[in-house]
């Protein structure tokens, strides 16, 4: 049986885990499910978890004594990191089978939290996505290569501006405006390139496709609040993306 102090440390660790899971792209139901199972595995009599995109609230009630409750505000919407999600998932499975001692649990969580996606992966991912989808939508090989170069630019902007904590709406507006102008000017200078195809490829990088998919999944499994909130969020992001591109197109039309 866990002592009172240990119970609150466990709650702390678990909230941290839920936070990471949510930020790395886990669905609401996954986070709630994971935390509930882990709480039970550690001997709680009752576990009440409530997760929405911006907050996790959790109550643990052990057979002895008062229930303890803590909430955690989730600030960053995070960047999808499937490897992190997978490791957290494995950790929770392990804990449910055989609960780890608390210091070890915390250490494992810290180690997962400290891990980052290797930057070259993200860079090459952006290049491949931009290039491949430009050709996918009917561009030539040269369009694909150009879209790849601008995909790398999107990636660099994301890693630069990401650190400034600019909100996603402003970020999407700015990046799509810059990319729109950049592609427009490049295609004006180099003949034979198709601005439309290149932009379509690079837009795929900025469209919040995974967030929309998650939002829909949330709604369908009954987490309506989070689903609606996230859907609205993604629609606003997409509108910002569209706005940036449109402003760029207007400017380019005026220059012509």
């Amino acid at each position: 049986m866990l002592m009172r102090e240990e119970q609150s440390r466990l709650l702390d660790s678990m909230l941290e885990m839920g936070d990471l899971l949510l930020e790395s792209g886990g669905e609401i139901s996954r986070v709630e499910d994971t935390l509930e199972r882990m709480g039970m595995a550690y001997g709680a009599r009752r576990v009440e978890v409530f997760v929405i995109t911006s907050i996790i609230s959790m109550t643990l009630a052990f057979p002895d004594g008062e229930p303890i409750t803590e909430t955690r505000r989730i600030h960053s919407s995070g960047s999808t990191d499937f490897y992190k999600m997978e490791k957290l998932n494995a950790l929770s499975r392990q804990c449910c089978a055989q609960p780890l001692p608390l210091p070890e649990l915390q250490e494992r969580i810290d180690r997962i939290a400290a891990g980052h996606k290797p930057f070259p992966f993200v860079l090459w991912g952006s290049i491949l996505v931009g290039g491949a989808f430009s050709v996918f939508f009917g561009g030539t090989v040269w369009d694909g290569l150009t879209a790849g170069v601008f995909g790398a630019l999107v990636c660099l902007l994301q890693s630069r501006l990401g650190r400034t904590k600019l909100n996603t709406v402003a970020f999407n507006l700015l990046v799509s405006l810059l990319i729109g102008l950049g592609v427009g000017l490049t295609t004006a200078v180099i003949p034979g390139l198709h601005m439309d195809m290149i932009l379509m490829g690079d837009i795929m990088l900025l469209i919040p496709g995974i967030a929309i998919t998650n939002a829909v999944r949330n709604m369908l499994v009954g987490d309506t609040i989070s689903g609606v909130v996230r859907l609205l969020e993604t629609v606003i992001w997409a509108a910002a993306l569209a706005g940036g591109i449109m402003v760029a197109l207007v400017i380019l039309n005026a220059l012509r």
Partner: protein
Amino acid sequence: MKESVVQLIMALIGGVGFGLLFGMHPRHLLPSALGGVLAWGIYLGMMKLTEIEFLACLVAACVAVFYAEMQARLRKTPATQFVMGGIVPLVPGGSLYRAMSCVVRGEMEAARQYGSTTLLYALAIAGGISIVLALRELQTKKQ
């Protein structure tokens, strides 16, 4: 035909790209991207058969999510990453862009058409996901 093959290859490369971008473990990259190739292949086949975009996209999304659930079970890892890989080629980036460019050029009729195509695809993807999820729910409840 040649166009379709190019699209399938690009769906594969793009799927791998998204996997890298989202920090997927390298051993899942190919299976996840193949889900996208499968989805796009089904989409192309359905378009040949019926020429109804919504239906083609819906069926393709269903197959993609089903494939994702299978992979996830096989590999004991969250299904989300495989769902992402399968859905990506269906995401209507092209029609969204065309709608915007029509708005800017003042061609509102065409813009409306591309805009509704974009929405239709988004709805079809969501519908496909929901059908498979509902079936899975039924199956787990039965057990």
